[in-house]
């Protein structure tokens, strides 16, 4: 009886979830297609397209590039976000609201605009289009989020802990490295993972700021322009899987961070 009464809700739930996840499911499904076209009917499963993908040197190379850009840019972003959050929380500067706004504002600017701006600026100061430039772009777009995550975990209880460390003779660096950073570890790791996922997935900035060495999303875009094959599906599936994995890890750290704060 109850099941019957709730039926419309269940139908709605299934429809909503299908709307969100069906494209991804189709993408993943046809990466296992045993044929040359990723279209119905599904014939398979087969791992031949994964094999082909891993034999594609340019793709594997771009995958490594993506990993390097994601890791290095996220280390820089987390470090900068940590310093900014610490400064804001500890020093309570004048115009704190204004500074917070300026730090968070890039979140609302489209990646296209940021990429264009960086293209012009980097050109002006003589930094060529490169993976380095892409990494810089990723620092710019991910900093607001990393700052927000870390800042949200700076509770008042940390003020006295910070004071206590200094009172006992710790320098700025010692206080940050030996006391504050270890306590903030869960949110630092969460911020790192989230930033790495966003960098890993990012296309527009990577496309506009790179030239010879490119990242995986750029290669996938190139493959797509050449036409749909299950190999593109396989590459897309891999990108998706790694994102999900990193997000999952980051969710665990966020959970730990919030539990620790209580």
């Amino acid at each position, binding site marked *: 009886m109850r099941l019957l009464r709730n039926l419309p809700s269940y139908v709605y739930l299934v429809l909503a979830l299908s709307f969100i996840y069906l494209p991804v499911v189709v993408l993943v499904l046809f990466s296992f297609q045993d044929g040359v076209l990723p279209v119905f009917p599904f014939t398979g499963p087969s791992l031949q397209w994964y094999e082909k993908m891993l034999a594609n040197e340019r793709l594997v190379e771009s995958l490594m590039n993506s990993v390097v850009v994601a890791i290095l840019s996220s280390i820089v972003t987390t470090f900068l976000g940590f310093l900014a959050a610490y400064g804001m929380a500890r020093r309570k500067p004048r115009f704190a609201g204004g500074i917070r706004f300026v730090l968070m504002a890039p979140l609302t600017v489209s990646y296209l605009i940021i990429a264009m701006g960086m293209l012009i600026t980097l050109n002006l100061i003589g930094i060529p289009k490169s993976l380095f430039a892409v990494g810089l772009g990723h620092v710019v777009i991910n900093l607001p989020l990393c700052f927000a995550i870390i800042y949200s975990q700076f509770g008042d209880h940390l003020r006295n802990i910070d*004071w206590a460390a200094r*009172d006992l003779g710790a320098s700025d660096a010692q206080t940050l490295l030996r006391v504050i950073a270890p306590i903030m570890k869960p949110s630092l790791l969460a911020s790192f993972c989230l930033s790495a996922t966003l960098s890993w997935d990012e296309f527009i900035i990577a496309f506009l700021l790179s030239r010879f060495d490119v990242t995986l999303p750029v290669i996938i875009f190139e493959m797509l322009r050449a036409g749909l094959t299950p190999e593109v599906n396989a590459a897309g599936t891999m990108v998706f899987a790694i994102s999900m994995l990193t997000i999952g890890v980051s969710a665990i750290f966020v959970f730990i961070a919030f539990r620790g704060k209580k």
Partner: protein
Amino acid sequence: MTKTIVELQNVTKSYGTVVAVDNVSLAVSEGEFVVLLGPSGSGKTTILSMIGGFTVPTEGSITINGEDMTGTAPAFRPTVTVFQDYALFPHMTVFENVSFGLQMRKTGKAERQQRTEKSLDVVGLSGFGDRSVDQLSGGQRQRVALARAIAVEPAVLLLDEPLGALDLKIRQQMQGELVHLQNNIGATFVHVTHDQEEAMAIADNIVLINEGKIEDYGPPARVYLKPATLFAARFMGESNILSGDVESSESGFVVVNTAIGKLKVPGICEIGAKVSIAVRPEQLHPGTQTGEEIIDIGEVQVSEVTFQGTHRLCRAVPTTNQSDLSLLLRLPPEQRVKVGDVMSLYANRTQAVLLEK
């Protein structure tokens, strides 16, 4: 003559238009246990924070051990603060917490080990070194915070309501232990609290603070028995306050016209001045006595009685009452009184305190 170790000269701290500490001067002697006592928001914690170096005064100077330290960072002062929330490092063991200060001072490993263990021993936590901080009870955390502070052997230990978060029984036990600890290590203690019983139990000298100013300063017994101001009389336990005008003043005594008649108390005051007379509840005795030493309060009728073990707390209304005045009494527990009883009261003249309005 003991040496002054901490000296505040005309110290003011204001935040915008709010004055938290208003022109305070204070000298603390070496080896003294001083308690800064006051209601919340009185500025006592700000004073402690300025001695510790976490807050810089707007005006005035702070001298510690003969050196001007008004703007010196906490790390370079011979002071260590024990915070109200203990501020232990949650990712470190008890041992690592206590040895942190020594590590920062680059003390050798062997000495560090030995001093850390000694500190833990002093606070009764030897053998707890390997525990993690969140395995400890509130009282134990408090001890770790103390051990961490005394490990670096500060000349002055600053305690910011360190017992505030503990329940009554542990708090009373820790009060005794703090006094014992202070005798043991000989450091100067400056302790902040809003609990006047705690202050009286542990202090050599009480500094009573209200609205950023020092109201009274002295040994607990003096501050309790002869409060310097009306605020001091009210804050340090219960007091009966009788207000009135000075009628005459001669040879060290004044006569004050109060709601229960003319009272002659020791003091010197201008005629016509508005004053208050403070008498503690336990200083009012039932019965009639005569003599130059006795103030006759007159007849009162008991309106409330509460039995409290060590005494009976009574509220009584003077029968000649001209206002809504009622008096608080502490009668001996064996004295049987009930609501409605009428009795005479007297007080010892030298115990009554004359205060400015």
